[in-house]
């Protein structure tokens, strides 16, 4: 029989076994092909990439991707090879030469990967279409989808070449495996018994100490300016923390966990139950034999979760901060009444004037001779993005009236905040903060002597707020004063600036209007628009978001699939053990519990570490590298929460899939599984 027909026969006989292999290879090829198609889609890239930024990111990611595909495919290849060593051993016993076995394996790989390639190309092309559609919908791009072919020829060529290269590598590695192993080795490969080492205390404690000190160091950042992150330097401490956590994770998993569980094994009272007497030693055994895989998966999962959390945060944060950077739908400075009329005319072209509110706010500047004034008083540039910060400013408080403040808040739709205000006594004021003070202090109750004309007045800060009614481009150090004080100012001075705030649903998301106003105002840096800003943020970061999203999905798929394969192969290897336990009187239910308890930690460890690392990294990133415009508003952590929930959901899904496969893999668990249900149904009817 020639190897080709042999391989073919082999394939068709054990379809369910190969289906798994096929599925996993198709999955990576799908990801690879959709990404390659995307990175070679010039129609798309032209729209979203300015000066090659996205292209260079694509290149970096494609390197990752290739490494990943090679790694993943060789892992699953090795996995399936190990599952079959016995079968190959029988071929060898029957007189097949090693070269013939290798040929058989090569043909099989060619069959499966070839088939997976076809599946991957179709699914990948569909995924690519979906991505293109999603992005253009998100960014409002006008893309002629007809110009993008379903199969991008260059991407197909690259994917096919790459897959064949990988197959070649697989065949080589299989050859090496076969060459090194003896006939006996092939037959008894699965039965290789490893000695159970007793876990040692020193590395265990070391692991705990290192990882705790890593997290402790991360936590230190909340001390603000006093923390080592500031006194030594952010990047040095950052690297140190990361190293501590990585090394700590390694020791924690390989030494501390087995040690702790080993202690439980000696705890007579807890240990001697029908379930634990099986699962506890098994856990130690598995964690010792699989420590390397588990550590790798844990780090991978921590990296993926951390990246996705930080990415989500850094995209979401500016969007959330728009309510402070550009509180009104449109806002600009006006020099004279004629300009106001021109602006109104322009807006009127786009929307019904009835639905739109125009509010003019006059800002009066006053100074204070006192020391200990808030940081906002002294700021010497306008705030906002880098553009604004070129605009110089002289120190002082910029006053607006309480009535104007209320009107603006209401126009901006912040009715709840407006409703909570209780009015101001004559000498009271509200201080608008740029961001909360780093040391946690608050100016509430402070008294600022200010000069108005010839009088000196003492203004007392009733409260501070983060709800600035006008953008920081137009006013910093804003002080909301009572209407009485405001009218004193009106009598004494001319307004420093006049700001026009335009609000209303009708002009939301109106880019053409913004463009026309921009032209009318000669590119004035004082023109701010909330929708426009959000739009800008999206088009700037969406490609980054997308590409990193690719990486994260990739990481998670890798973690999930490897956990899946690892667990079901362990279950398959211990089929006989489960059968024996069943004969000894373990019910199907008890066996399912044992399976769950064996599988659960292998999903929980990567997830728990991922979660911890992600939380600490997000904390450090948020405290150390981001502005604090939103104060302690919990809404800003929504994306982190979302990333965590998605990850949890993903792990849960893989966990359920894994235990389900384990159940079906083990005869008595499966039999009783069906039997019990059958019994229940019978009992009910």
């Amino acid at each position: 029989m020639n190897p080709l027909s042999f391989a073919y026969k082999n394939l068709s006989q054990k379809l369910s076994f190969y289906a798994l292999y096929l599925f996993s290879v198709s999955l990576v090829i799908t990801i690879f092909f959709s990404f390659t198609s995307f990175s070679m889609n010039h129609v798309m890239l032209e729209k979203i990439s300015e000066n090659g930024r996205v292209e260079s990111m694509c290149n970096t990611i494609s390197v990752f991707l290739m490494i990943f595909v090679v790694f993943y495919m060789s892992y699953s290849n090795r996995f399936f090879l190990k599952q079959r060593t016995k079968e190959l051993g029988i071929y060898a016993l029957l007189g097949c030469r090693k070269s013939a076995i290798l040929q058989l394996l090569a043909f099989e790989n060619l069959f499966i990967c070839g088939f997976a390639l076809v599946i991957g190309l179709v699914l990948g092309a569909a995924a690519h279409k979906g991505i293109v559609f999603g992005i253009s919908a998100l960014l409002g791009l006008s893309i002629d989808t007809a110009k993008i072919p379903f199969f991008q020829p260059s991407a197909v060529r690259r994917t096919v070449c790459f897959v064949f290269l990988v197959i070649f590598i697989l065949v080589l590695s299989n050859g090496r495996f076969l060459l090194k192993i003896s006939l006996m080795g092939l037959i008894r490969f699965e039965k290789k018994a490893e000695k159970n080492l007793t876990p040692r205390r020193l590395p265990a404690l070391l692991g705990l100490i290192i990882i705790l000190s890593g997290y402790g160091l991360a936590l230190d950042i909340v001390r603000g300016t006093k923390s080592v992150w500031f006194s030594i330097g952010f990047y040095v401490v950052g690297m140190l923390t990361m190293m501590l956590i990585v090394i700590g994770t390694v020791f924690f998993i390989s030494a501390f966990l087995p040690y702790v569980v080993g202690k439980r094994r000696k705890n007579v009272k807890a240990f001697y139950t029908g379930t634990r007497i099986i699962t506890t030693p098994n856990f130690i055994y598995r964690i010792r034999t699989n420590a390397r895989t588990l550590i790798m998966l844990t780090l991978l999962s921590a990296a993926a979760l951390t990246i996705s959390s930080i990415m989500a945060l850094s995209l979401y944060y500016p969007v959330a901060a728009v309510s402070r950077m550009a509180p009104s739908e449109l806002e600009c400075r006006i020099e004279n009444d004629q300009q106001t009329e021109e602006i109104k005319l322009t807006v009127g072209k786009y929307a019904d004037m009835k639905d739109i509110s125009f509010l003019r706010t006059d800002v009066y500047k006053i100074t204070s001779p006192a020391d200990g004034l808030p940081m906002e008083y002294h700021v010497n540039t306008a705030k906002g993005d880098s553009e604004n910060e070129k605009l110089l400013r002289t120190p002082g408080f910029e006053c607006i009236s309480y009535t104007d403040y209320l009107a603006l808040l209401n126009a901006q739709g912040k009715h709840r905040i407006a409703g909570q205000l209780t009015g101001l006594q004559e000498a009271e004021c509200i201080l608008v903060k740029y961001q909360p003070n780093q040391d946690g202090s608050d100016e509430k109750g402070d008294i600022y002597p200010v000069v108005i004309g010839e009088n000196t007045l003492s203004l007392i800060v009733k409260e501070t707020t983060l709800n600035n009614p006008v953008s920081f481009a137009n006013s910093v150090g804003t002080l909301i004063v009572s209407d009485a004080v405001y009218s004193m100012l009106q009598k004494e001075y001319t307004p420093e600036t006049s700001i026009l705030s335009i609000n209303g649903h009708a002009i939301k998301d109106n880019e053409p209007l913004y463009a026309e106003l921009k032209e009318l105002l000669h590119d004035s840096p004082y023109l701010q628009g909330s929708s426009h800003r959000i739009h800008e943020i999206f088009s700037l970061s969406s490609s980054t978001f997308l590409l990193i999203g690719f990486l994260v999905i990739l990481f998670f798929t890798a973690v999930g699939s490897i956990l899946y394969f690892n667990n079901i192969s362990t279950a398959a290897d211990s089929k006989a053990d489960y059968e024996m336990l069943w004969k000894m009187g373990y019910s199907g239910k008890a066996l399912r519990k044992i399976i769950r308890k064996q599988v659960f930690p292998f999903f929980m460890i990567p997830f728990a570490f991922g979660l911890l690392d992600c939380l600490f990294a997000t904390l450090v990133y948020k405290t150390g590298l981001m502005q604090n415009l939103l104060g302690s508003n919990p809404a800003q952590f929504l994306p982190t929460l979302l990333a965590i929930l998605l990850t949890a959901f993903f792990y849960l899904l893989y966990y359920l899939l894994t235990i389900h496969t384990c159940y079906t893999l083990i005869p008595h668990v499966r039999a009783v599984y069906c039997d019990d249900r059958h019994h229940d149904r019978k009992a009910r009817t």
Partner: protein
Amino acid sequence: MTVLLKAKEVTKTYENAKRPSLNKVSFSVENGEFISIMGASGSGKTTLLNVLSTIDTPTGGEIRINGTDLKNLSATAAADFRKNNLGFIFQEYFLLDSLTIRENISVPLALLKVPPAKIEKNVRDFAKRFGIASQLDKYPCELSGGQRQRASAIRAIIKHPSILFADEPTGALDSSSATELLTTLLNANQELHTTILMVTHDAYAASFANRILIFRDGCILKELSKGGSDRHEFYEAIAAEIAKSDTTRTGGSLK
């Protein structure tokens, strides 16, 4: 003596099989007996053991152990029944690799929710009695086949099962390990009064029992009792019987 197990016209026909693997087998086992089941390969010995031990269900007939009719057991109840009443020794030992011998032996007791202190004491006593005290903290892979089988026998005996089922327990052992194991079983039978049902191909192993059922084509062909004879005489009687049944078989096929 009281009847422990009663099999009445037990029949088992596997799906798609032309002939029944067990054909109306009836016999009973009394408390404290040590029974060997012999017969050619394919004569239905393993099938009988499986059916008697609730691992498989018969297609006909009735089996009662300790008065319980096995037919009425649901899957869960059968598991409980095995847990409370039955012990097993397998040809391939089936000790759990990741557990020490001590833990392996403790599994049935832990499953029965015996208090931990009592488990530890029992394990210690049994290990001493059957001579594996020094191996308690080793892992199965550190023991020889004979030692492993002894451990697995102790695992079955320690919970004082009503009946101990053993399917060719000496099949993978050399003769001296086999003798040690058989002595262990004999001890359990004589001192702990464990009822034993053992399948074997080997007349020497069978001679440790006090009654022998010889199977052919799913039926009991012959029954031998040790009666007053000593083990050696019994062995010769068994060997002679086996030889006789062998000739009838070859005689049959020649016809």
